[in-house]
């Protein structure tokens, strides 16, 4: 038991200050990284993929040192990683832990499924109202068409 814990520590090391995004579906890790714009961040980032998870079988985890995210930014990832949780670490202590929540409105980072929508032709930032959170449905603020969970294309 002791050994097990020790080995986990080695796989993904703890951070002093920053944000941990845990329980990401294994296949969604890269998309989550893109969504949070992690390429633009200079601080240390540790990524674990295909880790064992008692709850989900396999999971991904991202640890970002020295960065704290707006809850709006974190909630965006609920679209592709609904099981994810966010943990805020300060001085090696967990100061906040919560599950991601699908927001009521989504701006900018999802493409509208309608090829004839103005947002797919001119420099217009996309904007959606979330009309169903369980069976994810996004209604375009502009063309009013519905983008369903199988059509979600992240910009």
């Amino acid at each position, binding site marked *: 038991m002791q050994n097990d814990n020790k080995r986990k520590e080695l796989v993904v090391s703890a951070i002093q200050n920053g944000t941990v995004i845990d329980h990401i579906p294994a296949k969604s890790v890269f998309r989550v990284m893109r969504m949070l714009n992690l390429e633009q961040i200079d601080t240390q980032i540790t990524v674990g993929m295909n880790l064992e998870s008692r709850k989900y079988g396999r999971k991904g985890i991202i640890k970002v040192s020295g960065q704290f995210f707006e809850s709006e930014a974190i909630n965006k990832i609920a679209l592709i990683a609904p099981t994810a949780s966010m943990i805020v670490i300060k001085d090696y202590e967990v100061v906040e832990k919560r599950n991601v929540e699908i927001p009521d409105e989504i701006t900018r980072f999802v493409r*509208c499924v*309608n090829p*004839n*929508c*103005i*947002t797919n*032709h*001119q*420099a*217009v930032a996309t904007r959606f109202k979330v009309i169903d959170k369980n069976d994810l449905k996004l209604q*375009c*603020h*502009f*063309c*009013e*068409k*519905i983008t369903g969970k199988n059509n979600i294309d992240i910009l």
Partner: protein
Amino acid sequence: MKNRSLVSITDYSKAEYLKILDLAETFEKEPKQNILKDYVVATLFFEPSTRTRLSFESAASRLGAKVIGFSDVSSSSVSKGETLKDTILTVSNYSDIIVMRHPREGSARFASEVSPIPVINAGDGGNQHPTQCLLDLYSIRKTQGRLDGLNIAFVGDLKYGRTVHSNVMAMCNFETTFHLVSPIELKLPSYVKMHIKDNNLNYYQYTDLNEIIPIADIIYMTRIQRERFSDPIEYEKVKNAYILTADMLSGCRENMRILHPLPRVNEITEDVDSTVQAYYFQQALNGVFVRQALLSAILGVK
């Protein structure tokens, strides 16, 4: 509704629909009023639509307004690659209200949000065409003397026909019973039917046009387009099933009237035109009164 854009029929409340219809009635009685002589109306037609444009320009002219604009993009700076935003911002310097038709869906909402002056949507692709919807409401009220508690039949392409969707949404405010006649492939989308149910109203679906003739107060005909069918054989099977002829009207209600957003192709035969039930040409004329009402209400002079 002063200074407020009209993009989608759901932007207005029931009280606002009724205000526009009442105002339109006053313009029908007295179409020429010089109340917009100090105003400039811009009509920006990014795709041609002669009927809608002329109807708006006629409405504006009869109220004394000056009309500027373009009727297709080749004669505007859009052909040089100007963005919609830039066109709207430029034109808003020259005018007091913009009437816009654009082939892209959502363009009208976007234009209304970047524009410092109000925008009336005259059709954004297959999305919304609220002034058509208001003129249909006007025609229904005028022919029936009321909007409440009517049996309205929609016939033809109920899946892609945007006028049908907006009309159903708007008529949900008036205790309507809906009769939906279409081929199986072109049934009303479920989100529109949900809207009917959410308002505790009833709808009935049919594939046979003859069934609704004795029960309808209004028959709203639409065109079935060949390109809507993935299988051309399916189109051949249904294309003649939704054609209204004069001899089919024998058992209809006395007050029943036939509406059609026009242009028609063959879905209403010409022998219907001379029946008392035919109302589609007067319906088009009503569009001018409704657009006079909208221009004057949004510009705040009525």
